[in-house]
C-alpha cells in the first residue's frame, strides 16, 4: 500500500474527507454567526445549542412522527428559525442600545437553558440516526472509497453558503440588508422596515445552524452536548477569519477543517487543540483576523 510519511494513503484520504465534512459545519455555523453579527452586533452564543436543537428535531421527527430525513431537512431549520424569531422579538430587541456584551451574556443563558432542557429529557447519551437510504454506501473513486453521505454534506453546505452569498451580494433584499448593516437610521429613513430585517436576519442565521444540525445528525450521534464544544471551535474560527466577509468565513471554515483532519493523521494528540493554536498564532501576527478589517 502507498504510504506518505508512514501513514497509509487511504487513511489520509479518509481523514481529509472527514476534515472537509467538519470544515463544512464550521463554514455554515461561522457564516450564520457573521450574518447575525453584521446586523445585530451580537455574538450568538446560542448558535451551538440551536444547531443541536436542529439535530434533535430531526431525530424527534423520525422517532415520534415518522417524518423522514428530507422533510426534516426543510422543517427543522424553519422551526429553529421561528424559535430564533421568538427570541429576537421577546428578548434580544431590548438590548440593541446597550453594550454588545449583554447580547453575549443573554444568548449564553439561552444556550444553557436549551441544552439543559434537552439533557433533562434525553440524558447525555447520543441517539443514533440512520443515513437516508439514497446516500447509504460509497462511491468507488479508484484511489479511495468516498462515503456518499459525506460527499452530500459537503455539497449541501457549500451550496447553502453560496446561496447566502448570492442573496446578500446580488439581490435587492441583500442590498437592503447591507444598507441596514452600514447605517440603520438612514436605511429606515428611506422607508425600509429595519426592525423587520433584523428579526428575519436573526431567524435566518439560526435557521442555518438548524440546517447544519440536521446535516450532522446522520454523520454523528445526536445528543444534547453536540453543540457546546463545537461552538467554541467555531468562535476560534471566527476570530481567525474575521467576520468581515462571507467568502472569508467559508474559506476559513473549510481550511481549518482540513488542517484539523490532517492533524488527526500526523499528530493525533493535538487534533482537539490545533484550531486554538492557529488562533493564537494569528492573534500574534494579524490580530484583526485573516479576512478582517481593523476597526
Amino acid at each position, binding site marked *: 500500500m502507498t504510504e506518505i510519511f508512514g501513514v497509509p494513503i487511504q487513511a489520509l484520504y479518509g481523514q481529509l474527507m472527514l476534515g472537509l465534512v467538519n470544515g463544512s459545519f464550521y463554514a455554515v455555523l461561522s457564516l450564520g454567526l457573521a450574518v447575525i453579527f453584521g446586523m445585530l452586533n451580537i455574538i450568538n452564543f446560542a448558535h451551538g445549542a440551536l444547531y443541536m436543537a436542529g439535530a434533535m428535531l430531526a431525530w424527534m421527527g423520525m422517532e415520534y412522527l415518522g417524518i423522514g430525513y428530507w422533510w426534516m431537512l426543510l422543517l427543522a431549520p424553519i422551526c429553529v428559525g421561528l424559535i430564533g424569531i421568538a427570541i429576537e422579538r421577546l428578548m434580544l430587541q431590548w438590548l440593541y442600545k446597550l453594550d454588545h456584551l*449583554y447580547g453575549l451574556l443573554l444568548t449564553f443563558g439561552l444556550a444553557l437553558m436549551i441544552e*439543559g432542557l434537552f439533557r433533562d429529557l434525553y440524558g447525555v447519551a447520543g441517539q443514533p440516526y440512520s443515513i437516508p437510504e439514497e446516500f447509504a454506501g460509497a462511491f468507488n473513486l479508484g484511489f479511495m472509497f468516498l462515503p456518499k453521505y459525506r460527499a452530500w454534506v459537503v455539497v449541501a453546505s457549500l451550496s447553502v453558503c453560496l446561496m447566502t452569498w448570492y442573496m446578500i451580494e446580488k439581490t435587492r433584499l441583500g442590498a437592503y440588508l447591507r444598507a441596514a448593516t452600514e447605517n440603520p437610521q438612514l436605511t429606515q429613513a428611506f422607508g425600509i422596515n429595519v426592525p423587520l430585517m433584523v428579526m428575519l436576519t436573526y431567524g435566518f442565521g439560526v435557521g442555518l445552524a438548524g440546517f447544519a444540525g440536521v446535516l450532522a445528525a446522520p454523520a454523528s450521534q445526536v445528543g444534547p452536548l453536540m453543540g457546546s464544544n463545537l461552538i*467554541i471551535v467555531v468562535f476560534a474560527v471566527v*476570530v481567525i477569519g474575521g467576520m468581515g466577509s462571507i467568502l472569508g468565513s467559508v474559506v476559513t471554515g473549510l481550511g481549518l477543517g482540513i488542517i484539523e483532519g490532517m492533524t488527526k493523521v500526523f499528530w493525533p494528540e493535538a487534533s482537539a487543540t490545533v484550531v486554538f493554536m492557529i*488562533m493564537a498564532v494569528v*492573534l500574534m501576527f494579524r490580530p484583526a483576523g485573516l479576512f478582517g478589517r481593523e476597526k
Partner: protein
Amino acid sequence: MSRRVTIAYLVGLGLLLLAPLFIYPILVMKVLCFALFACAFNLLLGYTGLLSFGHAVFLGTAAYVTGHALKVWQLPTLVGLLAGTVAAAALGWVIGSLAIRRQGIYFAMVTLALAQMVFFFFLQAPFTGGEDGLQGVPRGTLFGLDLANDMNLYYLVAAIFSASFWLIQRTIHSPFGQILKAIRENEARTISLGYDVAKYKLLAFVLSAGLAGLAGATKTLVFKFATLTDAHWHTSGEVVLMTLLGGMGTVFGPLVGATIIVTLQNELADKVGSLVTVIMGAIFVICVLAFRRGIVGESLALYKRMIGQKL
C-alpha cells in the same frame, strides 16, 4: 473611610468568624472560594470592562498545580498554595497578552477559546488524572495545627479570603484602579492621556488570574481533590453569572452573587438534577433583561433614590 463603612466591615468580619459555628464549615468555605473567584473576576469585568469568558482555566490550573505539589511533591501547605497561585498568574500573563490584542466581544471569544485549549491539555495530560481527577490531596499542617480538622482549615480559608478581599479593595481605590476605570469608561481617551493601556490591561488580567488561582488552590485544599470541572467553560459561565447577579463593578456584589449561586446549587442539586443548568440559564436571562446592575447595584440605586427624595 467613613464610620458607617468601618462598622459594616467589622460586622462582616464578625459574621465570617462566627459562621462555621452555625453552618456546615465546608459549605461556607466553598462559598468563600467562589466569592474570591468572583471578586477576582469582577476586578476585570466590573472595573476594567474586560469580559473574560475563560476564567475557570485559572481556577483549574491552580487547583491542579497545588494538588500536585501537595500530593506528589509533598510540599508544605502554604508553598503549595503559592505554587498554584503563581502558576495561574503565569498562565494569565500568556493568555492575557494574546487576548488584549482584541477588544470587546472578540476578547471574550479569544479567552474562551484559549481556555478550551488548556482544558483539552488537562484532559490528556497524565498528571491531572484525566476524567477521574486528582484525588486524595493531603491538607497538611500549618504552624503545628492539623488542617485535616475542618475548623482549623476554616480559619485559614477565612484569612486568605479577607486578605485577598482587602487587596482587591486597595487595588480598586488606588491610582492604578482609577486608570482601570478610565479604560472601562473610555479606552481611546485614556490612550490619548498618555497611558499605556495595553500594559494596564495586562497587569489587571494577571492580577485577576492570580487571585482566581488562589481561589482554586484553596478549593483543592478544602475538597482534597481537583477535577476537570474546575477548568470547564461551565465554571467560567458560573463566575460570570455570580458577578452579574450580585452586581458587576460593586464591591460586595460578587460576594452576594457567589453566596446565592453556591447555596442554590447546593440546595437544588439532588432535587431537580440536570434542570439546575436550565435554572442558571434562566437567571442569566432575567438578570440581563430586568436588572443589569445586579442585586447590590440595584439596591444601592434604590437607596440613593430614597436619600435623594428626602433631601
